């Protein structure tokens, strides 16, 4: 009975409070309680804000926890998408490289010759490279591998679906070369029309590609251009520049090394000229 009388009192207080609340609503509607709002906002706002920020962090954590299945699925989808994009990107790069090499070849004068384009396969050897085209594509031993006007090597072994190309870096490679003066003003023609300053024999060595038998009193200097001029190659193809020219007056000939224009290690596609 006591408890019931106690709740009667509380009920009465609650009704009074509600009435007070309704009065507050009207007062606030008439904008007479702005000072109360400002005071509370300044003093208690930050307290609530700190709590809300902490709550937000917990909430996002729980959201992630609840949606972990969706997140995992999304992650898997993204992985697949990424792989697809990588494949597309790799294909594009492949096409780009092929396009580049064909454009280079088309800009040359020897368009009438027949070429086979091949992908360079990974090889640990510095003496040769392998490509994924062989006798099925018409490649035969002795064919010349090149990129544009740059000499790459000579096909030394062919099977149905692949070929091995001997590079100038090979110790078994011996080729006659011409050394020409470089003329900046005359461009590519400058190499051809200028006189040959010396001839030599190019072969691979442990130190690099070496040119020997350069005439002692010739006007060869660093930076001159080395062309392959060998019966096994046919065309005048560029190999690189003269570097490390020897200057021993007691020798009967001079030697130099070749700084190749294209790095053989980074070749991805080459052309093989079919005889």
């Amino acid at each position, binding site marked *: 009975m006591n408890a019931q009388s106690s709740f009667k009192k509380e009920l009465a207080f609650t009704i009074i409070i509600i009435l007070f609340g309704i009065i507050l609503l009207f007062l606030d509607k008439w904008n007479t309680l702005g000072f109360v709002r400002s005071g509370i*906002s300044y003093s208690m706002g930050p307290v*609530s804000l700190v709590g809300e920020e902490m*709550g937000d962090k*917990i909430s996002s954590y729980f959201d992630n926890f609840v949606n972990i299945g969706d997140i995992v699925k999304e992650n898997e989808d993204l992985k697949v998408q990424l792989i697809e994009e990588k494949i597309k990107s790799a294909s594009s790069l492949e096409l780009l490289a092929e396009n580049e090499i064909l454009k280079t070849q088309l800009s040359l004068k020897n368009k009438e010759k027949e070429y086979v384009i091949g992908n360079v396969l990974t090889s640990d050897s510095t003496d040769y490279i392998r490509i994924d085209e062989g006798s099925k594509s018409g490649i035969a031993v002795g064919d010349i591998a090149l990129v544009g006007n740059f000499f790459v090597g000579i096909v030394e072994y062919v099977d149905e679906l692949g070929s091995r190309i001997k590079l100038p870096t090979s110790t078994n490679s011996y080729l006659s070369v011409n050394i020409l003066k470089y003329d900046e003003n005359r461009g590519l023609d400058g190499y051809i029309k200028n006189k040959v300053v010396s001839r030599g024999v190019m072969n691979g060595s442990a130190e690099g590609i070496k040119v020997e038998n350069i005439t002692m009193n010739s006007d060869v200097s660093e930076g001159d251009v080395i062309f392959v001029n060998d019966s096994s190659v046919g065309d005048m193809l560029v190999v690189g520049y003269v570097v490390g020219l020897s200057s021993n007056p007691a020798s009967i000939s001079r030697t130099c090394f070749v700084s190749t224009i294209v790095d053989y290690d980074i070749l991805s596609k080459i052309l093989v000229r079919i005889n």
Partner: protein
Amino acid sequence: MLEALYIIIGIIGAIFLEGFLFSAFGIRIFLLLILLLVGRLNIKFLSLILIIYALISDVIFHYPLGTDILLVGIPLIFLFSCSFLFNISEGIVGYGIKYISIAIYLLLIPVLPPFLLSGSFGILTWETALMIGIKALVLTVVLYLLDLLLSFTRGKENNIKISKKWN
């Protein structure tokens, strides 16, 4: 004087806790706190705390001043009205009525403030109603556990008086 300090610290702590729980789980604990204090605190003190807390809540949640008093007042009227028929202090019936009070409070939160702000009631879907039912159940369980915890604490009236008899 000390009571005033308790009230201020308690209100600040409760505001922080409510901000945290509302952001994290969408739960408001105002009514829960009032239900905890009913019967434990003088009704005059309780009314004062309710009004101050309600005003602060109104400002923080950007409601018109007095909204929270109505939000808490309506379920409390239901609760105290039920006290004429049932014992609301304890037992399954008591906590059942408290559950309904809390559910009414949580139901009013999305409905009443929009009405007072714009004149149209807020939208209430079955999903929201289900969530309210679950939240009310959780809060009732929490209320029961807190009641249980507070019943173990020693009040002034339960002090054991030790006396020594000198021969």
